[in-house]
C-alpha cells in the first residue's frame, strides 16, 4: 500500500495480513489471524471502561472527569497492534483504551483513576494524566491538543539519536480545530520525522458534532495539504484500522510522517454526567450499531476462527480481571500527604517549602 499525500486514501475494510498470532490468552483459535488478539484487546477495553463507570458510581473515582472510550476500541487496538515495543505515544483525555491496548496493567490504571498511591502516577495524575515511561506512554493530556507536539519532539530525538522508533499522537476530532495540531503536522513533514498523528474521530467534541465544528470534515485533506501521508479508516473494522496503521507507521519508520483518522462513534456522553441531550436517540442507536467489538465477535465466529463458547469464556475471564481491578482500587491506599511536595522538581533539587513549615518559621520569628 503506497500513500500519496496528494491523494488521501479511504480504507474501509481490508483483509488482515497473515501474521503470527500474539494473543496473550490461553485461547488462540487460529494462528494466522490477529482478529482474536484484536477482539481480546477490544473486549478488555470495553469491560475496563464499563468498570470505570462503576467506579464512579461507587464513589471510588477521583473526581468526575472520566471520559470513556466505549465505541472507540478499534482505534486503540488496531493502531497499538501496529506499533513496535520501542515506539512511544501520547494520548488525549479519552485515552484509557489506548493505554490498555498498549499493554497497561488494569489494576494500576484503575488505581490511578481512583487517585490511589498504587496508580501509575501515584494518584497525582488521575484519569486524564496517566503515563508510563516503561511502555512508552509519554502521557495523557487534559488540554485538547496538548500532547500533540510532544511526539514531534520524540521524533526529533529518535532521528537525532538514531533510534528505530516511531512516536504516535492520539487525539480527538475536536483537536482538529486546535492550532497546535497544524504547527505539529507541518514540523513533522518539514523534518521528515518518524511520527504518526492519529485522530480518533468519534464525531463529537463534547456536545458539538464535527459538522458544527468545521465546514470540511474530510480531515485527510488537511494533513495532505501540509505534506503528510494521510488515510482514513473505518473504526468499526479493527482489521482495517490495523492495516492502515501498519502501513502508515511503517512509512513513518522510514521517515515518512503520516496522519490517520479513524471514524467511530462515542457511545455515551462526553463525561460521566453528560446524558447527551444534544443528539437524538436514533442517532445514538445508529452510532452504537457501529460496534467494533460486536463486529469482531461476529467475524470471528463467521470465519470459523472460534466459536461462541470460546468467546464467552474469554469474555468471562476478562470480566473477572476487570472486576478484580475495582477491588484492587477500592482496597488501595490514598497517597500519603508528604507525596504532595515530591516531584515538583527532581529528587535532591530545592523543593517548595510547605505552607505549614513556612508559617511555623514566620510565626516563631514574629
Amino acid at each position, binding site marked *: 500500500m503506497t500513500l500519496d499525500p496528494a491523494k488521501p486514501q479511504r480504507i474501509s475494510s481490508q483483509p488482515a495480513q497473515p501474521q503470527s498470532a500474539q494473543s496473550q490468552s490461553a485461547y488462540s483459535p487460529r494462528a494466522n489471524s490477529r482478529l482474536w488478539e484484536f477482539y481480546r484487546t477490544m473486549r478488555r477495553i470495553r469491560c475496563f471502561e464499563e468498570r470505570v463507570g462503576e467506579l464512579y458510581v461507587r464513589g471510588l473515582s*477521583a*473526581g*468526575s*472527569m472520566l471520559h470513556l472510550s466505549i465505541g472507540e476500541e478499534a482505534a486503540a487496538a488496531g493502531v497499538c497492534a501496529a506499533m513496535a515495543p520501542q515506539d512511544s505515544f501520547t494520548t488525549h483525555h479519552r485515552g484509557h483504551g489506548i493505554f490498555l491496548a498498549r499493554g497497561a496493567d488494569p489494576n494500576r490504571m484503575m488505581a490511578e483513576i481512583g*487517585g*490511589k498511591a498504587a496508580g501509575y502516577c501515584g*494518584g*497525582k*495524575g*488521575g*484519569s*486524564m*494524566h496517566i503515563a508510563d515511561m516503561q511502555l512508552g506512554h509519554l502521557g495523557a*493530556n*487534559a*488540554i*485538547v*491538543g*496538548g500532547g500533540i507536539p510532544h511526539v514531534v519532539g520524540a521524533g526529533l530525538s529518535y532521528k537525532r539519536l538514531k533510534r528505530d522508533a516511531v512516536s504516535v499522537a492520539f487525539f480527538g476530532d*475536536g*483537536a482538529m*480545530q*486546535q*492550532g497546535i495540531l497544524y504547527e505539529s503536522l507541518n514540523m513533522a513533514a518539514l523534518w521528515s520525522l518518524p511520527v504518526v498523528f492519529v485522530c480518533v474521530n468519534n464525531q463529537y*467534541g*463534547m*456536545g*458539538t458534532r464535527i459538522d*458544527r*465544528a*468545521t465546514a470540511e470534515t474530510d480531515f485527510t485533506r488537511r494533513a495532505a495539504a501540509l505534506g503528510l501521508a494521510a488515510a482514513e479508516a473505518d473504526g468499526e473494522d479493527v482489521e482495517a484500522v490495523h492495516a492502515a496503521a501498519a502501513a502508515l507507521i511503517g512509512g513513518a519508520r522510514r521517515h515518512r510522517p503520516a496522519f490517520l483518522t479513524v471514524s467511530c462513534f462515542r457511545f455515551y456522553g462526553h463525561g460521566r454526567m453528560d446524558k447527551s441531550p*444534544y443528539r437524538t436517540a436514533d442517532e445514538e442507536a445508529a452510532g452504537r450499531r457501529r460496534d467494533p467489538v460486536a463486529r469482531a465477535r461476529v467475524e470471528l465466529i463467521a470465519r470459523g476462527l472460534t466459536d461462541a463458547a470460546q468467546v464467552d469464556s474469554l469474555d468471562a475471564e476478562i470480566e473477572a480481571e476487570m472486576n478484580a481491578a475495582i477491588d484492587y482500587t477500592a482496597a488501595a491506599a*490514598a*497517597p500519603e*500527604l508528604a*507525596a*504532595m*511536595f515530591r516531584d*515538583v522538581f527532581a529528587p535532591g533539587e530545592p523543593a*517548595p*517549602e*510547605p*505552607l*505549614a513549615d*513556612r*508559617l511555623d518559621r*514566620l*510565626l516563631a520569628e*514574629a
Partner: protein
Amino acid sequence: MAAQEITYRDALRQALDDAMRDDETVVVIGEEVGRYGGAYGVTKDLIASYGEERLIDTPISEPAIIGAAVGAAMTGLRPVAELMYVDFLGLVMDQLANQAAKIRYMFGGQIGVPMVVRTQGGTGRSAGAQHSQSLEAWVMHTPGLRLAMPATAADAYHLLRHALTLPDPVVFIEHKALYARKERTDLAAPVAPWGQATIRRAGSDVTLVTYSRMVFTALEAAAALAERGIAAEVIDLRTLNPLDMATVAASVRRTGRAVVVTESCLTGGVAAELAARIGEECFDYLEDPVIRIAGEDVPIPVSPALESAAIPQPPVIISVVQRMLRR
C-alpha cells in the same frame, strides 16, 4: 422583586439573560455555550431566547475564540467569550495580554475593546493539575485588563452586569466550587459598586483579606475564631482590578494585623501584591508581619485528599490568627 434562593450559577445566568435582553450587541461566544448550555451550565437554555446568532458555539480553538472576540468588540459587538477553564489561559494569553489589553493604548486611545472573558478556576472537583488552577495573578499583572472574582451570587450577578457596561476588557473568573452554592438574595437590591471591596464580617482584632471562594473559608475561620473570643474582619475584594486598597488599608489600620488568604499558589500570586501593598500603606500600624496563607507551590494533585490539602482550609487560618494574637 423579593429575596429568593438563588445559586451562583443561576445568578450568572440571570446576568447574561438581562444583559442580552437590554443590549442587542451582547453575544456569547465559546465552546458549548449554546446548545449544551455551558460546561458548568451557566448559559443553559439562553439559546432558546437568543438563538444561535447570539449564543455562538465554537470549535475548540481558544486562541481564535479570544481573538475573534477582540475583533468583534472593535467593530460593534460586546462579546462575552467563555473560556471553559482558567487553565486554558496558557493558550490565549497572547490574544488577551498582547492584543485585548494593549489595543486601546497602542492605538493612542482610538478605540477600546469592550469584551468580557468569563472563565472559572480553582479546585474542588479533583479535576487535576490542568483543570484546577487559580491563575488570576497572570491577569492582574497585565495593564489594560480589569479583573473580577465574585464570591457571592449577588456579586456574580451585579459584577457581571457591570462588566458588560465597561469600555475595556474584563476577565471575569468564577469558581467551579461555587456554582451550586445557594444564597438568599434579591438580585434587584443594590450591592457595593464595581471596584469597591465589601466587609463580609466586621472585626477588630485582625483583617482577613481575600476574594472568590476563599471568602467562605475565611468566614468559616472567623466564625470559629469568634467562639474563641477573637474578632476577625473579613474583606472580600470582589475585583482585583480595580483594587480597593482604601478599604483594606482602613481595616488593617484599625486591626493592626493582616492575613491574606488566596487559593492560588503562594509564590508570585495575588497574595504577594496584597501583602506588599498592606506593608507599604499600613507600615506604622502593623503589630505583626502581614501573613500570606495561600495554596502550596505545587501543581494541583488529582487525589481528593491531596487536592484539599493543597489549598488553605479554615484550621490553618484559625491557627495563624491565634498564634499572631498569642491566644
